[in-house]
């Protein structure tokens, strides 16, 4: 039984990742991180960012909105202070990178190329910044250009994290594939607005990104479409709260899943998801994930 997954040059021991932004750098709960396929870091930008003013989180029945705004130490401090600490994690390290111009993605990729991280997740989908972010991710040509620029500057595995905000992710996924991506993550948070009951925006960043269980049907829908349209592996993300959810994503065509919001409720959630998947694989005597990946299409 081989339950590992390979994307680009990176082999993950299992198909469960902690999603960007929801597990910091995987260092707080090492015993969880070590047993996952990998951890995706908080988004890293060229320069340090303080992020958005509070409040940064809003809860609604079905999930949350966040507007953290890419708070991070910047790529220099990240490389010298954080990466060495991540080096002895026993899982794969994926660095989420966010640029504010096409060239910045190239610079970020180049700077991280010489560090011992395993893969880059190119973030063209953050809803919480004024420039770049999801605006890039809405334009297939820009997605292709960003991917190509990063591809040119690093030999590491490149995964592009796409948005489904006001764009057909099939088009942007094809663009990422054309630009040389090894895989795509779908979906990032959806645009959202929360008001405070008196007509004022609740979040300090005014708008936010919606995540949590409410996203799952739409995320599954996107994974189903995208995985049918591209040859590179798709990483499913959006409302994975349990192993049952993760199985649905694999069945819809995802090669891996990311667990995000669930980790805020329980830092053991990604591990619970993996343990549940493993149990399912054993009980059903799977020899490889391919037996279930995309089975929803085969059976319809």
């Amino acid at each position, binding site marked *: 039984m081989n339950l590992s997954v390979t994307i680009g040059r990176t082999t993950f021991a299992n198909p469960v990742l902690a999603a960007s*932004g*929801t*597990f*910091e750098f995987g260092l*707080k*709960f090492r015993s969880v991180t070590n047993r996952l396929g990998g951890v995706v870091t*908080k988004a890293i930008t060229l320069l340090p960012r*303080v*992020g958005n*003013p*509070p*409040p*940064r*989180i*809003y*809860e609604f*029945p*079905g*999930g*949350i909105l*966040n507007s*953290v705004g890419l*708070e991070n130490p910047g790529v220099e401090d990240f490389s010298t202070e954080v990466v060495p600490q991540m080096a002895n994690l026993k899982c794969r390290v994926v660095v989420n990178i966010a640029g504010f111009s096409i060239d910045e993605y190239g610079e970020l990729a180049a700077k991280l190329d010489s560090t011992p991280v395993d893969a880059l997740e190119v973030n063209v989908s953050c809803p919480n910044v004024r420039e770049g972010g999801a605006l890039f991710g809405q334009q297939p040509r820009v997605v292709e250009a960003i991917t190509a620029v990063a591809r040119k500057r690093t030999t590491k595995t490149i995964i592009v994290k796409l948005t489904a905000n006001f764009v057909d992710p099939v088009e942007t996924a094809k663009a990422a594939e054309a630009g040389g991506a090894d895989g795509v993550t779908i979906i990032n948070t959806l645009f959202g607005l929360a008001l405070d009951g008196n007509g004022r925006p609740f979040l300090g960043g005014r708008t936010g990104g919606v995540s*949590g*269980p409410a996203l799952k049907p739409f995320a599954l829908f996107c994974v189903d479409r995208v995985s049918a349209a591209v040859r590179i592996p798709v990483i499913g993300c959006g409302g994975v*709260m349990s192993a049952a959810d993760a199985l649905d994503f694999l069945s819809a065509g995802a090669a891996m899943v990311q667990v995000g*919001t669930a*980790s*805020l*409720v*329980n*830092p*053991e959630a990604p591990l619970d998801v993996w343990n549940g998947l493993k149990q399912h694989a054993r009980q059903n005597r799977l020899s490889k994930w391919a037996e279930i990946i995309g089975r929803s299409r085969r059976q319809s």
Partner: protein
Amino acid sequence: MKPTRCPVSAARELCAGVFSLWLEAPDIARRVKPGQFLNVRVSSGLDPLLRRPISVCDVELSRVRLVFRVVGRGTALLARVRAGDELDVLGPLGRPAPELHHKEILLCGGGIGAAPLLFLGRRLRKANRLQVLLGARAKAELLLVKEFRALGIPVATATDDGSGGHKGMVTELAETQCRMQNAECRVQNGRRWSAVSGQPSAVFACGPRPMLADLVKRLDPIPIWGFVEERMGCGTGICYCCALPKKGGGQVRFCEEGPVVKLNEVVL
């Protein structure tokens, strides 16, 4: 860190909208320090999704006490918990309040803010001289007065309507206290709050933001450690959703660097 399921051994309403729960939680009781909080699930399903951070009010042998006010849907659900139920709890979380010795310490609580000060008072009383000031809208809403007195800590109170103690704000009481001390100090050595021990002293405060801001203004430059409340995501430092702006830029992530912070260093 795994969440634990803790049996509730006692549940009671202290006054309108304020509830007290005792949890049987030996591991947490052993490890928790004043200033820390527990992150509590208020439903077994997905709604409400996030845990609710609640400061530890007291610890007794293997039991931990939480005292909270109903402010929304989550805490309203928590108020329905009865003895015999179980709560899904993550913790203890947050950075403990600094351990002080040989100091004169003022504990100043507004409303529900009295809760975390009780546990702090219990731990600080042996090595320090303490005074507690509690404020509320009316006498019936003054919390934990008996408990503080049982620890041998003198309590002075202030109420908006004058029904219990000083008529007015608890911050006024605090200012009076400090000025009184201050007058004595000036005569002796010109330093505030050093009449007895000869060392600088501290104030711990917990209450609504306006109260904390008012206290900073009135007591400046005495250092004030404040228990600050803000919406949290994870409570464990992994999501960066709870941020409190620092004076001069940057921010405090106070589920991790707080919830007890130096009030004169943050923007309230």
